[in-house]
């Protein structure tokens, strides 16, 4: 038991710093606030070290979910995935707020095969075929992540930000496309539709390439899952929160990791 605990702590120690330094996944729009119904917004999506410079791996667009202000799902135009980034266009004819999200749900497993450590990543229904029958020490984790951004044509509003009740989600108190420097912006984080209390939330301004420090701001959600930031400088911000629990949907998985990331634009006064 003690050994198990030590092992778990070790694993956590190995994973956590990595997680903290890990590549960041993001989706960044060319505009967040538009004023005509024939406006078009284009997006980049990638996994990278620097914000928002694609330098590592493209985000996969298979799980792109775009919700229009009327609550309907819309398809992107010209989706493309290159070596280091993905891109797509989105006309925004409806007045209100659009939610553009990469919603990933899957399993990852560590196991040993003939004394060698192996890793596997995939979907729940692929688990049986993905891991050899003679694998040992199979440890399966479930993960649910949402990486998203918002675009508003005209006045913010509509149904796109209604929570789905799955994983970590952001609910606006301040509209995500109504952020200006020096004004407090407040949001609520929900985990499976319920307030996510006591979670650390990090905000990192973009353009990390042009400064020496990450300049991250941290805060914590209160008992209602609410958190606030006052952004000093205008620009794009990467806002991220993570949590772990054992509320898995797949019986083979003992642990679940949930993550939430938003790209928010803050305009100057």
């Amino acid at each position, binding site marked *: 038991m003690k050994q198990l605990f030590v092992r778990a702590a070790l694993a956590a120690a190995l994973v956590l710093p990595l997680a903290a330094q890990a590549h960041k996944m993001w989706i960044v729009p060319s505009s967040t606030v*538009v*004023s*005509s119904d*024939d406006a078009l917004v284009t997006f980049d999506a990638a996994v990278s070290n620097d914000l928002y410079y694609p330098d590592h791996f493209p985000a996969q667009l298979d799980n792109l979910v775009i919700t229009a202000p009327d609550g309907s799902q819309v398809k992107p135009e010209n989706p493309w995935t290159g070596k280091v980034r993905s891109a797509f266009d989105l006309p925004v004819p409806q007045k209100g707020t659009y939610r553009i999200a990469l919603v990933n749900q899957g399993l990852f497993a560590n196991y040993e095969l003939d004394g060698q450590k192996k890793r596997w990543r995939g979907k729940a229904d692929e688990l049986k075929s993905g891991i050899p029958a003679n694998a040992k020490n199979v440890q399966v984790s479930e993960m649910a992540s949402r990486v998203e951004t918002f675009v508003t044509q*005209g*006045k913010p509003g509509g149904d796109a930000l209604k929570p789905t009740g799955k994983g970590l989600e952001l609910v606006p108190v301040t509209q995500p496309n109504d952020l200006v420097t020096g004004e407090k912006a407040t949001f609520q984080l929900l985990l499976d539709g319920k307030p996510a209390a006591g979670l650390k939330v990090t905000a990192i301004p973009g353009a990390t390439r042009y400064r020496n420090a990450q300049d991250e701001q941290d805060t914590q959600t209160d008992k209602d899952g609410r958190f606030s930031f006052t952004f000093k400088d205008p620009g794009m911000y990467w806002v991220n929160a993570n949590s772990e629990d054992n509320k898995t949907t797949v019986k083979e998985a003992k642990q679940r990791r949930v993550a939430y990331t938003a790209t928010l634009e803050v*305009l*100057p006064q």
Partner: protein
Amino acid sequence: MRRLLPLALCFLAAPVAAADMNLTVEIPTLKVAEYHRPYVAVWIEREDHSVAANLAVWYDVKKASGEGTKWLKDMRQWWRRTGRDQSMPIDGVSGATRPAGQHQLHFTDGKAPLGTLAPGHYELIVEAARETGGHETQRIAFDWPVKVPAHLAAKGTDELGQITLDLNP
């Protein structure tokens, strides 16, 4: 001259009527490689930043299929406070962009677009945003109603020049 006379008489008659505002907005001449006329918005805010009156919005009204509205959001303060609630064009408020120079605007208490301001402390705001250019906002604070004629001014530095606001009781 014959034409001017009735006009002059109108002006003479004006002081009898309600309080008014005379605003001059200067758009400076800029020596830049690519010049576009600025989009300009003029409005009045209450102390809580709510909008008491939309006075002027100059934008590219001529472009086909309302394409000029695409850049309205660049007047970002105006857009956030009131622009995004409007449907363009706004009757008696919006109009074409203006060239460099002094532009006179006249508003009368009780008449659109000024309407009737409740007694209080206000700010007149002029915001300019120029394609491939800069952005500037100037504010002039005033109290309403005015008891004695007041001459107020602000001076822009880049996209706006001299702004004067004359208030008459």
